[in-house]
């Protein structure tokens, strides 16, 4: 720990001291490892075991009383028929909801950033932090009470007659926006803060209008953040299960991969369905890894503009 050593080490005493210091720094490094060890062990057991079991299960057959053997059948089953429909349904819903949330989130963030009211900014940021992370079941219920079959707005505005249905992909998308837009606001506000006044003034001095400023200056600077935000939103919507399950019920009419996995895990119809569910989980992990692989570099790149 001694950063300043008034006595220069000389002779035997010095060698002894430096050896002692070496030993103590070694001990400290070891102490660091020991302090981290429980965490690593825990993750290896509580996270590693299920993850490995999932990967192993998706490449093996399962039939009670018979030895399991290697197969790619689960994976190809998970990418065909109803399972594929569910995967594509999830991808479609997540992509569209993420795209809409990206645009609306940018608009809302811009409105907040350019506002004169400091209070508004703090309120929106705090609320976004809360809304983006915690919705799930209560969120689904709020929307059911509002726009479900017996919902307040549905009843008073006679929306069912007009063809409205909350329990399909459109309705789910509307609910997902409730946590996706705040997530986008959180992602993009730092980037909007990074747009400097001077850039706008320079563009104006060169004769650029509002449109040209956005087209040639602001949007190119924002692109990495917007793309990164979109990918993050996609991943978030893709992994969502609780909201969808509370709204349409596991294995309901809406084709979503999370609902499909839950239905296969719960159903006792076909023993092998569990292994297909594991293969679908593996598909999800692959997509999540891709999402992260796109998101992290974009995020680093957009950080360049945030001084």
């Amino acid at each position, binding site marked *: 720990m001694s950063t300043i050593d008034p006595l220069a080490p000389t002779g035997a005493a010095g060698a002894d001291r430096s050896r002692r210091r070496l030993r103590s720094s070694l001990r400290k490094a070891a102490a660091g490892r020991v302090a981290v060890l429980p965490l690593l062990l825990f993750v290896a057991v509580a996270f590693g075991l299920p993850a490995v079991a999932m990967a192993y299960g998706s490449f093996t057959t399962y039939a009670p009383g018979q030895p399991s053997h290697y197969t790619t059948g689960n994976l190809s089953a998970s990418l065909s028929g109803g399972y594929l429909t569910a995967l594509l349904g999830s991808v479609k819903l997540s992509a569209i909801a993420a795209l809409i949330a990206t645009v609306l989130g940018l608009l809302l963030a811009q409105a907040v*950033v350019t506002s004169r009211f400091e209070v508004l900014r703090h309120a929106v940021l*705090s609320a976004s932090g809360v809304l983006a992370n915690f919705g799930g079941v209560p969120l689904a219920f709020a929307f059911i009470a509002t726009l479900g079959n*017996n919902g*307040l707005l549905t009843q008073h505005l006679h929306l069912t007659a007009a063809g409205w249905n909350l329990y399909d992909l459109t309705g789910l998308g509307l609910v997902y926006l409730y946590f996706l837009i705040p997530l986008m606001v959180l992602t993009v506000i*730092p980037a909007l803060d990074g747009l*400097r006044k001077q850039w706008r003034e320079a563009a104006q001095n060169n004769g650029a209008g509002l449109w040209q400023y956005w087209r040639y200056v602001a949007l190119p600077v924002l692109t990495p953040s917007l793309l990164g935000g979109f990918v993050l939103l996609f991943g978030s919507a893709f992994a969502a299960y609780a909201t969808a399950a509370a709204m349409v019920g596991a294995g309901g009419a809406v084709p979503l991969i999370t609902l499909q996995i839950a239905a296969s895990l719960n159903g006792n119809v076909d023993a092998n369905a569990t292994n297909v569910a594991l293969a679908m*989980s593996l598909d999800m992990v692959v997509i999540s890894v891709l*999402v992260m692989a796109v998101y992290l570099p974009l995020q680093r790149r957009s950080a360049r503009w945030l001084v």
Partner: protein
Amino acid sequence: MASVSALNSPTTAAPKASRSSRRSGGRPRFGRTAVLVIAALYFIGPLVCSFLFTVDSDPAKGFTFSAYSQIFSVAGLWPALQLSLLLAAATILVVFLLLIPTVIAVRLGSPRLRSVVEFVCMLPLVVPSIALTAGINILLRWGTEYLPPTPFWVTFVDMQNGSFPVILLLAYVVMALPLAFRTLDSGMRAIDVRTLLEAAQNNGAGRARAIVTVILPNLRGAMLNAGMLTLALVLGEFTVSSILGYTPFAVWIVNGNAADDGTVTTAVSLISLMLTWAALLVMSVSGGRRKAASNKPAT
């Protein structure tokens, strides 16, 4: 995935000068007001509507608070809530026991240790909770098949005990790791651990005592934040518990709603939402104010 954006990170980015001179004419301001009003309607509307739904759903009965008074008598709510709170307390405890030594070690240790720990704590982000559940599910099935003759069987059965399912605890700790690590780590970054430790040790405190009496009190704010986030996560958790067949709070709400007319469960879910949000808002407001000066967002 959502947890990548730590609740308190972007709030801390100090407002830059970009706001001041954007007021160019009337049109953008009109547009801004429209955006804000529509956003407010969309975000507040469902909450107001679900409140009205709970007090005024049946035209025959008219305006009534019976949905709220029934909360205290409705069957199954208290056991479910107790289970959730018990799990939340246990999860917070385990998260602290695992992460606090880690964040201190990471702060004092080498950069390599840091990147290893960061990677490990972010790993759960690429496995959606439903996929984790599928993995746990298959492990439990294998266990039921192969463990009965072995001495592990008793432990295995105990882990799935309905009054305190350790298996859920394990899953929740894994799910809480990314956000809790980020929160605690950014809290550690705000204090000068090395200097504090040296000062304490120069005053004759041992290393352990220095950590307990000097470092931990400085970490109180971050610990409160991490605890609140974990609490909110466990109280709202539905995926793992519903598929593995347990009935904590969120699962009870959904099952209860399938059974009766829904005003009571909607009322309960509305209250839980409000309480969670109130706690988290208080936390993000106080945390944001305190940290605004010191550190940049963790990401």
